[in-house]
């Protein structure tokens, strides 16, 4: 067989139902793999059991939940717990989170796209220094600056406002966004810029007619990444806001711990509810979301 493959490897795939092809395919994707099967099954259990317990408990009456094991399905399912959560500001918190996420995405895009354009195309010390600053910025943990940021936010009179969450969240989403965008921007070939230059296009026009359309993949990754940062953000809201007004969902959930306490069904109903909006996004735009997230990993 080896003497067969060496001279004409290109031929192999063409052999209809030929042995090598068949074996290769089965080998890679089809042949039963007990090890993979078992480990996948274990992980499936690990993922599903908590989710099941969460949903089941969230439908249970509190008295029953206090006595029973959460794995038992509710004997008399109820939506009361969801009602409790919805009557305790959930919608308002969700709306705040959406506002924060939208604003963070907007700021990150408006600032990072031009910056990445400069970082990739402009070759002088300023451009490369700017890029390096963001590269190093990846390493600054948000936790490390929360005290001074609190001081700044308080002095800027932004304490307890949505802006106090939006501005630093956007700043801390920037380094990774720049890395993603510069990665995509580098794939635009020199020839395309030259072609546009021959048409007499300005750098600004190139930004809008070449760079932005060509980095759509990177941009959608950045949208997803920075929206997730806003969605997940906890520390900034915890320290920089206090009242109900600018309370975002993560902080609202955290406060439910004291508020609902061992009303575990209500607590879990709040967790389920917090997952529904993004789950809806996931159902509608699974491809974009998954593709975008793969992009965070550098394709």
């Amino acid at each position: 067989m080896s003497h067969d493959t060496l001279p004409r490897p290109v031929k192999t795939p063409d052999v209809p139902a030929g042995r090598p092809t068949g074996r290769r395919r089965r080998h890679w994707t089809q042949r039963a793999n007990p090890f993979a099967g078992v480990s996948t099954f274990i992980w499936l259990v690990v993922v599903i059991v908590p989710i099941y317990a969460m949903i089941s408990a969230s439908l249970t009456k509190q008295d029953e939940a206090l006595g029973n094991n959460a794995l038992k399905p509710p004997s008399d399912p109820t939506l009361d717990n969801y009602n409790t959560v919805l009557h305790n500001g959930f919608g308002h918190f969700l709306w705040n989170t959406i506002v924060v996420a939208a604003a963070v995405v907007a700021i990150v895009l408006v600032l990072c796209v031009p910056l990445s354009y400069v970082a990739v195309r402009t070759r002088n010390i300023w451009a490369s220094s700017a890029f390096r600053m963001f590269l190093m910025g990846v390493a600054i943990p948000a936790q490390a600056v929360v005290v001074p940021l609190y001081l700044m936010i308080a002095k800027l009179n932004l304490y307890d406002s949505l802006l106090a969450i939006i501005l630093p969240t956007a700043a801390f989403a920037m380094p990774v966004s720049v890395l993603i965008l510069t990665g995509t921007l580098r794939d635009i070939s020199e020839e395309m810029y030259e072609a546009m230059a021959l048409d007499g296009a300005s750098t600004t026009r190139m930004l809008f007619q070449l760079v932005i359309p060509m980095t759509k993949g990177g941009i959608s990754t950045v949208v997803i990444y920075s929206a997730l940062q806003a969605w997940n953000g906890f520390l900034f809201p915890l320290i920089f806001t206090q009242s109900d007004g600018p309370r975002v969902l993560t902080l609202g959930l955290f406060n439910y711990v004291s508020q609902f306490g061992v009303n575990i069904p209500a607590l879990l109903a709040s967790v389920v509810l917090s997952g529904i909006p993004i789950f809806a996004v996931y159902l509608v735009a699974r491809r974009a979301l998954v593709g975008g997230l793969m992009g965070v990993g550098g394709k």
Partner: protein
Amino acid sequence: MKGGSRVDAGRPPRGSQAKAGRPHAALALPAVLFFAFFAIAPMVLAFYLSFTKWNGLGDPEPVGFANWQKLLTDDRLAQSLTVTVLLTVVSWVFQTVISLLLGVWAAGRQKNRAILSAIFFVPFLLSSTAISLLFYALLDPNFGIIRGDTLGSTNGAFLAIVFVGGWQFIPFHTLIYQGGARQIPEVLYQAAAIDGAGRVRQFFSITLPQLRNTVATSSVLMVVGSLTYFETVLILTQGGPGTDTAILPYLMYEAGFKSYDFGYASAIASFLVVAATLLSLLMVKLSGFGAMRSTREGM
């Protein structure tokens, strides 16, 4: 495309062509200023505050090296550093092994894989706060599913944090590995199959080496990400039992927002910045982020 840019970069810039699409560096200024204000300035301010005494009210008073002296002799810092490193390493192993296996498995293209992958992805849709809350409820010693003293024992609390972090982030890293595995040319497997290599050998001699860059990217994200276990620690263990799960960000939070010793908290924060920067420099070096860039730039 890579080839294209390589050729270009080697060519000395000349005439109008070299200027094509090279925007003025000033275009990057808004991003630079914004990031400098909300990320770099606070970092510098944290360093400044670490030389002051400040309880959050009034103005910080300079105290010289007192906070740093305290930091270097504080047993809790040593313990915290150990826990932080341990948490990072154990989480890295746990998440890498599982996401690598799942990711490579999910790179296959049958229907059931798509469905299972979709289920596996669900935990990532919840915020860290929501997930911490979920497990906080499920681990409630009297009213949860796993009743008993899980969070009250050192190992239980530590493993719970590792597990909760993994439960949330493994879907994401699986996705990265899935993306990486799909880019491995099938020809390599064909050749190996023809040589009679078994699945295990194929995994170690083809899959793993081919995924080297993916492992690096995913690892950097995991390590930097393990610092964001702050909310998990705050919600699940509050650093306990005793001080056994007080990771550095939590120690900083406690010094600042429980003892109101913002000077000392800033010293811990500065330490955290230095540690994180060194760590990511090391990882950038090991992972070859820089090297990847230089190949693309054609150096």
